């Protein structure tokens, strides 16, 4: 029996994963206004790559993580150029349809290559087991997730606030045309940001195989969650996404544990309510959705 603290901690880890995967979507949505429903596909790629490399190439868990990041980043660059870019100025409907199409293709390919079942990953010994703290048993694995989430958050915030590139990103999110007029290559900024965001999604997907699960329908199953996190947190806001992801992670885990019959119902209700209450997102920048 997990105590409340234990459940909260689990929710925190879950939220950290949601954050990792969703942050890229948040920034790109804030930057380009491009509705990318297929963002979960990058997480899938990270996860499946991890599974495959560990199984067939014998690589260790930790070694695969950066590879997951890089592979997803590269895939995103390819997709951006070939498929997303032509539709930046198009209607949202078209963007929805395109990205739904990408999800379908991803589901089909995943089923073809890896079969329809859930994937599981053997964690390295260092991450197995638990540690007792404050009367609660915390698994090393989940600690690792929380730590990874924290480190990446710090890195992102630092990158945004302290580097020149970060300044360009912020400028582009706040005022697209003005940024262009000032000589910022918004397109280039977007590509790099997109790559980083997708890479993080891949990383999140790889990290989260045992927590979020991984099957061909992953991108579709979690679509509502990613969108919820981004929209409630406010597109373009990293801290907002973090806050929303943690809240959602804790709420969902708590609900699943204490009232399992209700389950996803709460989340969708929360989605509708929050959207109405916070049209700009919890900490969002930019215009209302």
């Amino acid at each position, binding site marked *: 029996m997990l105590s409340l603290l234990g459940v909260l901690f689990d929710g925190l880890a879950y939220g950290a994963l949601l954050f990792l995967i969703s942050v890229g979507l948040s920034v790109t949505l804030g930057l380009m206004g491009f509705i990318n429903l297929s963002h979960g596909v990058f997480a899938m790629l990270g996860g499946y790559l991890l599974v495959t490399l560990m199984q067939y190439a014998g690589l260790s868990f930790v070694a695969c993580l950066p590879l997951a990041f890089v592979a997803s980043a590269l895939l995103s660059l390819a997709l951006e150029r070939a498929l997303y870019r032509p539709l930046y100025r198009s209607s949202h409907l078209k963007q*929805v349809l395109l990205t739904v199409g990408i999800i379908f*293709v991803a589901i*089909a390919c995943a089923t073809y290559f890896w079969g329809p079942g859930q994937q599981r990953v053997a964690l390295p010994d260092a991450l197995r087991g638990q540690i007792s703290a404050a009367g609660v048993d915390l698994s090393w694995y989940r600690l690792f997730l929380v730590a990874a989430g924290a480190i990446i958050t710090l890195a992102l915030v630092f990158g945004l606030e302290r580097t020149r590139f970060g300044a360009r990103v912020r400028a582009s999110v706040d005022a697209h045309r003005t940024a262009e007029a000032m000589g910022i290559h918004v397109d280039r900024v977007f590509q790099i940001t997109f790559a980083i965001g997708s890479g993080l999604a891949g990383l999140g997907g790889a990290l989260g195989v045992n927590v979020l699960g991984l099957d061909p329908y992953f991108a579709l199953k979690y679509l509502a969650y990613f969108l*919820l996190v981004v929209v409630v947190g406010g597109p373009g806001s990293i801290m907002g996404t973090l806050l929303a992801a943690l809240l959602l992670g804790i709420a969902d885990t708590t609900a699943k544990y204490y009232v399992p019959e209700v389950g996803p119902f709460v989340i*969708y*209700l929360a989605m*509708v309510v929050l959207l109405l209450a916070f*049209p700009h997102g919890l900490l969002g920048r930019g215009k*209302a959705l």
Partner: protein
Amino acid sequence: MRGVAAERLTPSVMPHWQALRRRERWRPAEIAFWLGLAAVFFVFPKHLVFASQVLITGLFAMSLDLILGYAGIVTLGHAAFFGLGAYSAGLLAKYGVHEPLAGLLAAAATAGLGGYLSSFLVLRGGDLARLMITLGIGLLLFELANQATALTGGVDGLQGVEIGPIFGLFHFDFLGKVAYLYVLAVSFTLFVLVRALMMSPYGLSLRGIRDNPRRAVAIGVPIRARLTNIYTFAAMIAGVAGALLAQTTQFVALDVLSFQRSADLLIIVIIGGTATLYGGFIGAALFLIAQDRLANLSPEYWLFWLGILLIITTLFLDAGVMGGLLRIETLVRRRFGIR
């Protein structure tokens, strides 16, 4: 109150008036379409169950076209109304009222109410918020139905849907013959209604709203009220389509409320071509026939090609099949000098 104008038009307006009138009249192709559907009864007597499915989906798609093509509202949760209608009709029949038309009315009322209430959420905000909210509402209803097994039968579906004869006269047969004619009659009736609506000043104002909402406001159109109106109406039609499915299959599956159904419907409307009213039917036929052939090979195969089709359509093809057909028609008309 003004009566229907019997005054003559000034002569200079006449040619333009006639051009507009020509657009309103039933074209030969349209008449051929509906006659063809009637002919299916005789030509494909063994496939009438499938044909009913196509018609029902076409009707459902038309209802989405109303809000997507004519009013520009993008929704990922239109199946909610389909499901509401299906369950209403199913439950009504299960608990004693076997007259099918009563079921249709109940479905329209329930779905319409759902549409009206949700319109306050859906019509606020921009596209992204709308996508989220419609997605959320759809998922919510799905979960509700999933959990309320006592009422809906949950995953196993609603059973015991007994449908009596229409008007007490026409019994549903096992071959689906009466069912097909029933579905055809209802679809045609609703179609005529919708067609008249779109050709009316009301339809014109909707097109204006879609074209340029700022301008519509500036000429005094109460946009919110009008969109709420069409959204509710579209929900009612979707509900009737759901009811038809429940009644002709005597069963309501949980997937009437699924996201997959909403997504498939979007695809159907896009393939067929928006804002043409027929696009929904054409798209439904193409989609269901293709699905029937390909999904049997393997579901992933189907999903893969569907995804590819979506990608190609959004990148290259703009107006769907109907758009292509209309363009061909224009070319043919020019070529042969038909006005």
